[in-house]
């Protein structure tokens, strides 16, 4: 199709470019005018500015589009700074960027760059509207996070954009909600030291093993992972009674154990259920994934009445510590919720698994356990890992079941956020959310980078 695209032509200036840019200018002017409670005036002024801009930009033919766009943004930003201070600077830059980009995009005829030449005007319009809708969907998925992150730096204890914040004045901003969040002691510095040391030592020792690949990179990776884990463990060490760190600690205790259990059980179940000779496979599968289908509140109520006598028995008969039993109950309950995710992802990867490989391994004298760990596991690992990630997030995000099954000692981070939001609406919740989003992004990026690296190493992608 690409050979059908020829170099684009400039559309007529007065009958096409000017009105189009004027329309966008009117929309932006309407929004800006609303700030000063004069939407209609803003609308007209915006349309005029848009029309003027498109004519002016059309006069500079030799300059690249990008330069035109950025200089428009700079011009608008300066105008904003003069009329509205720091807030005007940011607003002006954003409006200028939009308008400048749109004016040059329309003016240079680039809007036809993506479609074949024989497309009619209506088809081109639909093509671009479709792109705009797709962009809007992405925008609306991500946009709600922006005010959350912005507000988390609020200097006040309310979910309110103060005038000082909107004017980008330093006194409107504060890190106090982050301080609140991380309040509660711990020894992150010491943890960093020990973690790095232990990681480095383990990395070094591994290199001494026979047949090990020796490289400095591995050593550094071990030290880095050790440092990260060390900071987390150090920060959580000895924390108790802190408003946010204790729940975070509980979440970090519960989620990994629940993930471990659901990954082990879920993987085994998926492998078993993918064997054709297992009777009632469909029924067993349906029961196993039912925690995902049954409304959570129903599961939670059921689990409450199931685990309470179990806990009583553990405490009374085995004499176990009450808070230990509490953790066991929550971990088991969360593991149940995580199992379906692991079963589904692992079953999906098993579909592509060639069973003649296991027969070949058996032919060469490997027992089933060796075959599993040396042949099957490496091939289905991506499914296991993504199932594990889902199980981890399920446990880490879960609030209903833990409210029922857990007692106050097992209060997790989502539980604390839930009560905090209901009782006090404190922006510390926003700080917590920002920290969690950042961690999730870092975690997923790391996993994705590692996956790409291993694919490249295995020669699966040209990378």
């Amino acid at each position: 199709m690409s050979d059908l695209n020829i170099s684009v032509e400039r559309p007529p200036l007065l009958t096409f470019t000017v009105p189009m840019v004027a329309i966008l200018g009117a929309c932006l002017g309407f929004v800006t005018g609303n700030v000063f409670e004069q939407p209609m005036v803003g609308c007209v002024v915006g349309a005029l500015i848009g029309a003027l801009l498109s004519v002016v930009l059309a006069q500079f033919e030799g300059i690249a589009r990008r330069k035109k766009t950025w200089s428009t943004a700079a011009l608008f930003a300066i105008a904003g700074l003069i009329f509205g201070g720091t807030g005007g600077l940011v607003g002006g830059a954003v409006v200028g960027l939009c308008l400048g980009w749109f004016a040059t995009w329309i003016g240079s005829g680039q809007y036809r760059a993506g479609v074949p030449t024989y497309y009619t005007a209506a088809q081109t319009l639909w093509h671009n509207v479709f792109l705009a809708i797709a962009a809007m969907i992405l925008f609306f998925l991500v946009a709600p996070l922006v005010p959350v992150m912005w507000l988390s730096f609020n200097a006040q204890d309310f979910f309110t954009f103060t005038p000082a914040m909107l004017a980008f004045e330093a006194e409107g901003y504060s890190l106090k909600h982050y301080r609140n969040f991380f309040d509660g002691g711990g020894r992150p510095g010491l943890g960093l030291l020990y973690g790095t040391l232990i990681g480095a030592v383990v990395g070094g020792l591994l290199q001494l093993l026979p047949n090990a690949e020796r490289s400095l990179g591995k050593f550094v990776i071990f030290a880095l992972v050790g440092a990260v884990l060390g900071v987390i463990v150090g920060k959580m060490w000895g924390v108790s009674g802190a408003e946010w760190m204790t729940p975070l600690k509980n979440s970090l205790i519960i989620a990994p154990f629940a993930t471990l259990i659901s990954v082990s059980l879920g993987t085994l179940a998926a492998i078993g259920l993918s064997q054709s000779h297992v009777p009632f496979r469909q029924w067993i599968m349906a029961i196993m994934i039912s925690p995902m289908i049954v409304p959570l509140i129903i599961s939670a109520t059921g689990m409450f009445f199931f685990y309470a006598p179990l806990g009583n028995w553990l405490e009374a008969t085995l004499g176990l510590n009450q808070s230990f039993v509490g953790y066991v109950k929550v971990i088991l309950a969360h593991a149940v919720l995580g199992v379906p995710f692991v079963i589904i992802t692992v079953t999906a990867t098993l579909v592509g698994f060639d069973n003649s490989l296991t027969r070949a391994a058996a032919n060469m004298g490997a027992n089933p356990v060796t075959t599993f760990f040396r042949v099957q596991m490496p091939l289905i690992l991506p499914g296991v890992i993504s199932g594990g990630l889902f199980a981890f997030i399920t446990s880490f995000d879960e609030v209903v079941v833990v409210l029922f099954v857990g007692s106050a000692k097992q209060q997790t981070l989502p539980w604390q956020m839930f009560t905090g939001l209901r009782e006090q609406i404190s922006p510390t919740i926003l700080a917590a959310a920002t920290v969690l989003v950042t961690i999730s992004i870092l975690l997923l990026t790391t996993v994705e980078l590692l996956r790409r690296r291993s694919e490249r190493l295995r020669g699966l992608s040209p990378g």
Partner: protein
Amino acid sequence: MNKIKIVSTVSALSLVAGMAHADGHMASDMTLVSWGGAYQQSQINAYTDPYTAMNEGVSVTWDESSAEAVAKLRAMNEAGNITWDVVDVVAADALRLCDEGLAMEIDADEQLAAAPDGTSAEDDFGDLLVGDCFIPQIVYSTTFGYRTDMVPDGVAAPSNICDVFDLETYPGMRALEKRPINNVEWALLCDGVAKDDVYDVLETEEGQERALAKLDTIKDSVIWWSAGADTPQLLADGEIFMGSTYNGRLFAAIEEQGQPIGMMWDAQVFDLDGWIIPEGLSDERKARALDFVYFATDTQRLADQAKYISYGPARLSSAPLVGKHASLGIDMAPHMPTDPNNAANTFLYNYEFWADYRDDIDAKFQAWLAQ
């Protein structure tokens, strides 16, 4: 291979044994249930910090579940696994829990401290000892706050409950609690019913209709709140002109956050908040809970709480001991709902009336809301 197995088995066993061993003294561990936020913080400062300092080895876990205390206690009771030791509830919830046998009965004179001058606890708490299980802690009030910068020019700031219903003089949105309690009383009061007759009128079908009809006049200008934090947030946003909430929340917004909010105390409704001890605790835990409650509701401790939050202590003997705010250094007495200047015109939550009529009026109110 075998050695590794032995080592791991032994270490796993010793881990379990270690956890079992920690069991020894159950009553050194206490789970308190409260409302979270500044209120719970004031309890930590005034009650549990000194208590754990005095009793070494006692650890306190907080559960912010007072809002669903009744439902959770019922469920715990049914499952036979009560994890709470002392629970902070409003008086109405305490009465329900007591009726259902979920809360322990308390003999005030036996189990609570006498006043320093020797007045018995029963006399010191006076009328506030409602029900057989409730141990009063504070008097709080539901009252109004308004944006001082949104009062129209040339008009005095609102000072009368009927200003809430006066949309002409005071235009703007109001925030009211999403339940009939308090709202219908205020509506009748502003519809010309004398204060003493409010509950007599409310008993009748026509009276209830009349209250809803009065609320109808401002319905389009009302945002309905369900959590105490909503109104301060809405006031800070400037989304409402005035709204009802607990007086301590308004105090925090005004004095601690410096928001441009004024108090309107007229026709504030007093309510009580206090402790109950769940029925069915083991003897050790019950002993610990009673010991804590004895300490936490004595005259000095109740007065100390007022250093951190503007709720009035429930004991008569605590009132003279109320001092200055712990960090702001301002006098707390004028911010108490019980202060004579603030308490010129007040209601006391009518437990008997609402116990009898709550379900009925609630249903009518919700139906009216949905119209």
